[in-house]
C-alpha cells in the first residue's frame, strides 16, 4: 500500500559504547558496560531478566533519565551520533501504565501535546494529529474524552502522541504488560502499521516475546548488569539463548509450560461460597450483571472469565465480602462461616481474614507496611497471633521472598510484588482465596510459580476462585469454569 511521503521519517541510529547508569543514592549500577549499535530502520526486541537495566536504556534514549542530580553515567550513549538530551523529539516513548500517560482530557489535544512542545506550526499539528490517530486505528472523534478509553485504546493514544512528533526512533517499554489479550492485539497491530508507514527505528522491551518476535528483525538479550549475552535474528536467538531466556523468565514461544492440566470438578459438592440471584455493581442503580448464580467448591480451582466491563472484578469483590450485592445473596456455607452469619459482607474485617482472602489486581493498593516481613505480619497481628515469625518465614520461603524480607514493598519488581500480595493473604490461611488477574503482565517464571501455588492450595482443600483473561491459566486451573455472559441470552451451557 502506498502511503503519503510526508509520514515517512528519517530513521535514527543508536550507539552505546561502554555505557552505564547509576541512580542517585544507589550503590549498584542499573546497567554497566553496554555496547550496542542499532542501524537506522532496525526493529529490535530487547529482553533480559528484571534488573538488567532494559528500561533504563529506553529512558536514557528518550532523554528522560534526568540530569546529574538524578544519577550518573559512564561511557557514551548516542542517538544519531549525539546525546539524546540534545535531540528532543527525535525519539518517542510509550510506557507500561496506560493511566499515567494521558495528559489532556480530549483525545486530539492529547495527541497534539508533543507537537506543541516541539513548537510545530498549528496547521501542521492538526494534520499530524489526524494522521497519527488514523495510523493507530483509533476510530474516534478528536474531542472524545480520554477518560473513557479502554486500556488498549489508551496505549494506542500514547503511541499516537509519540508518532505525531515524527520521531526517528520509537521506544516501547512493556507497552502491553497491563493489557488484556484484546488490548495486546490492538497495540501490536497499531505498532506494526505505524512502523510500515514511518519506517522508524524500533526498540521494544518486553518479556512476552510471542507478541513481538514476528514484528522485529533483531533480538538482543541482556544479562544481569546489562551485558549483551545474545544478539541476532529472533529465530536464531530463541534457539541459541534458550536456556538464558528461560532463566530470565522470558516467554519463549512454543516452550511447553510444565504445570499440568485442569481436572474437571463438580461445582456442587463441598461448596464453600455461592452466589444466588446476584445483581452486581459498584453503585446502586448502576447494575452490571443480574441473575448471577455460581458456586465455589473446596479443593478445586474455579476460573471466571468474561468480556471487558462485564463486572468480573466486581463479582469477585462481591463474593469476597468487600462489596454488597445490589440484589440477591452471597452465602458462606456453615463450614466456612464457622459460627457467624452466612453473609460475608456483614462480617468484620478480622473475621474475613481467615475465611476469605482476596488478592487485588493492583499491588500498590494493598501495601500497608514498610517491609516485606511487615506486610506478612499484618494479618497475623490482626488475628492476635503472638509467634508471627514461625508463620511468616515458611511463607516467605515458599514464595522466594526471604532475601527481600527487609525491603520496602514499593521497591520490588512487578513479579515480586504479585508474590508478596499473595503471600500476605495466604499467611492467614483462609479457606477461600480469591485472585483478580493473578498472572497479568507476569514473566514466565512468576506465572509458573503462581499456577503451581494455586494448584497446591486447591490440593490442600482450599476453594480458589480466579478472575482471569489468560487462556493458558484457564487450561491449567479451570477445574470449574464460569463466564460472565456477554449479552442478554441469560444462563446456559457453553463448550
Amino acid at each position, binding site marked *: 500500500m502506498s502511503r503519503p511521503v510526508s509520514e515517512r521519517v528519517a530513521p535514527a541510529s543508536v550507539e552505546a559504547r561502554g555505557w552505564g547508569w547509576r541512580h542517585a543514592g544507589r550503590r549498584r549500577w542499573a546497567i554497566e558496560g553496554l555496547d550496542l549499535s542499532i542501524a537506522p530502520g532496525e526493529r529490535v526486541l530487547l529482553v533480559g531478566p528484571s534488573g538488567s537495566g532494559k528500561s533504563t536504556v529506553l529512558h536514557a534514549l528518550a532523554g528522560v533519565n534526568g540530569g546529574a542530580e538524578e544519577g550518573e553515567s559512564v561511557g557514551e550513549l548516542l542517538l544519531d551520533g549525539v546525546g539524546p538530551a540534545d535531540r528532543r523529539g527525535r525519539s518517542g*516513548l510509550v510506557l507500561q501504565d496506560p493511566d499515567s500517560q494521558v495528559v489532556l482530557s480530549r483525545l486530539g489535544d492529547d495527541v497534539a501535546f508533543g507537537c506543541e512542545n516541539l513548537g*510545530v506550526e498549528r496547521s501542521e499539528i492538526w494534520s499530524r494529529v489526524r494522521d497519527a490517530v488514523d495510523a493507530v486505528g483509533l476510530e474516534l472523534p478528536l474531542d472524545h474524552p480520554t477518560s473513557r478509553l479502554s486500556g488498549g485504546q489508551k496505549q494506542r493514544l500514547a503511541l499516537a502522541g509519540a508518532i505525531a512528533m515524527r520521531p526517528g526512533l520509537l521506544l516501547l517499554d512493556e507497552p502491553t504488560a497491563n493489557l488484556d489479550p484484546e488490548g495486546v492485539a490492538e497495540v501490536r497491530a497499531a505498532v506494526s502499521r505505524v512502523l510500515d508507514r514511518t519506517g522508524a527505528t524500533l526498540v521494544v522491551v518486553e518479556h512476552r516475546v510471542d507478541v513481538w518476535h514476528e514484528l522485529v528483525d533483531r533480538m538482543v538479550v541482556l544479562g544481569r548488569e546489562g551485558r549483551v549475552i545474545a544478539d541476532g535474528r529472533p529465530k536464531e536467538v530463541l534457539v541459541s539463548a534458550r536456556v538464558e531466556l528461560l532463566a530470565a523468565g522470558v516467554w519463549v514461544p512454543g516452550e511447553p509450560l510444565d504445570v499440568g492440566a485442569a481436572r474437571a470438578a463438580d461445582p456442587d459438592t463441598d461448596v464453600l461460597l455461592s452466589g444466588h440471584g446476584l445483581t452486581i455493581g459498584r453503585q446502586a442503580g448502576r447494575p452490571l450483571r443480574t441473575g448471577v448464580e455460581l458456586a465455589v467448591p473446596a479443593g478445586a480451582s474455579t476460573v471466571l472469565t468474561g468480556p471487558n466491563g462485564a463486572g468480573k472484578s466486581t463479582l469477585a469483590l462481591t463474593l469476597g465480602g468487600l462489596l454488597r450485592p445490589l440484589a440477591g445473596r452471597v452465602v458462606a456455607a456453615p463450614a466456612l462461616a464457622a459460627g457467624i452469619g452466612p453473609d460475608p459482607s456483614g462480617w468484620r474485617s478480622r473475621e474475613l481474614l481467615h475465611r476469605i482472602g482476596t488478592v487485588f489486581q493492583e499491588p500498590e493498593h494493598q501495601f500497608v507496611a514498610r517491609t516485606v516481613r511487615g506486610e506478612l505480619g499484618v494479618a497475623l497481628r490482626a488475628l492476635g497471633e503472638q509467634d508471627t515469625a514461625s508463620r511468616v518465614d515458611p511463607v516467605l520461603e515458599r514464595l522466594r521472598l526471604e532475601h527481600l524480607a527487609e525491603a520496602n514493598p514499593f521497591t520490588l519488581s512487578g513479579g515480586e510484588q504479585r508474590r508478596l500480595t499473595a503471600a500476605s493473604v495466604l499467611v492467614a490461611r483462609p479457606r477461600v482465596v480469591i485472585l483478580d488477574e493473578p498472572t497479568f503482565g507476569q514473566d514466565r517464571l512468576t506465572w509458573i510459580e503462581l499456577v503451581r501455588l494455586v494448584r497446591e492450595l486447591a490440593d490442600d482443600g482450599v476453594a480458589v476462585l480466579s478472575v482471569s483473561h489468560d487462556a493458558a491459566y484457564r487450561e491449567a486451573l479451570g477445574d470449574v469454569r464460569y463466564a460472565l455472559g456477554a449479552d442478554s441470552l441469560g444462563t446456559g451451557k457453553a463448550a
Partner: protein
Amino acid sequence: MTGRVERAAPTTTVIGRRPSDATEAPAAVPPPRLRLLPRVNPVTRLAAAILVTTPLLFTIDWVSAAVALTLQLALFLAAGVRPSTMLRRCWPILVAAPLAGLSMLLYGRPAGTEYWSFWLARITDGSIELAVAVTLRVLAIGLPAVLLFLDVDPTELADGLAQVWRLPARFVLGALAGARLIGLFLDDWRAMAMSRRARGIGDHGAVRRFATMAFALLVLAIRRGSKLATAMEARGFGARTARSWARPSTIGAPDAALLVIALSVAGCAIGGAILAGTFHPVWV
C-alpha cells in the same frame, strides 16, 4: 462402581445477564452553555468575576449587595441560566449564606434596640442589618464565581491563562495534567479501603484508618505524578524550544463587552450604596 470416576473435560457455565434496564454509564451531560458568552475567553470571565466581586469586599452594607445580586440574577437569566440550574449549581452558597448571616445576627456589633440576648449573643437593630448585608453579600460574591464558570472547559481556561495572560506554560499545563489525576485518586481510595478490609485491618477507628490511608494515597499520588511527569517529558514538555499552541486562545470585542458589564454592575452597586447613604467602607 468403585474407585475413581472418570471425569469429563471441564465445561464453561455462562452465568448472569445484562440487566434489561441497564443504563450505560451516562454520557457526560454537557453543562448548559451560557448565551451571549460563548465567544468570551475563560480568562475574561475570571477577570469579570474579580471585577464584580472585589468592590463588594470593601463595604459592608445591604444596598450594594442587593443591587449587585439583583443585576447579576437578571443578567444570568438573560444569559439563559434556568433558575433550576442556579439552585443545583449554587446550593453550597445557598447554604453558606444564611449561616454566615445567622452568626452576624447573633454576634454582630450591637446597635439600636435590643430584641433578645443570651450570654454573648445579642440581637439588635444593628446586628439584624448586618445579618441581611452579609447574607446578600455572600450570595452576590458566590453566584458569579460559580455561574460564570458553568461551561468553562479546564483545558480552555489553561490555554487562556498561558496564551492571553502569559502565565508560565510549564506551571499551567502541569497543573492541568495533574488535576486529571484526581479522578484516579478517587478510585485508588476505594480500592485501598476494600484492600484494608480484606487484610483484616478495616475494623480500626475511622480516624486512624483515615490517617494511614491518606498517607498511603500520598505515596501513590507521588508515584503516579512522577510517572506522568516522565510521560510528559518524553513528549518534549519542558524543552527549551518555544512552545506552539494547537488551540488558539484569543480575546476580542465580546471580552471587552463582558468587562464593561462587570464594571457597570460593580459601579451601580457602590454608587447605589453611596446614594442611599449606606456605604460603609470596611476601613472606617
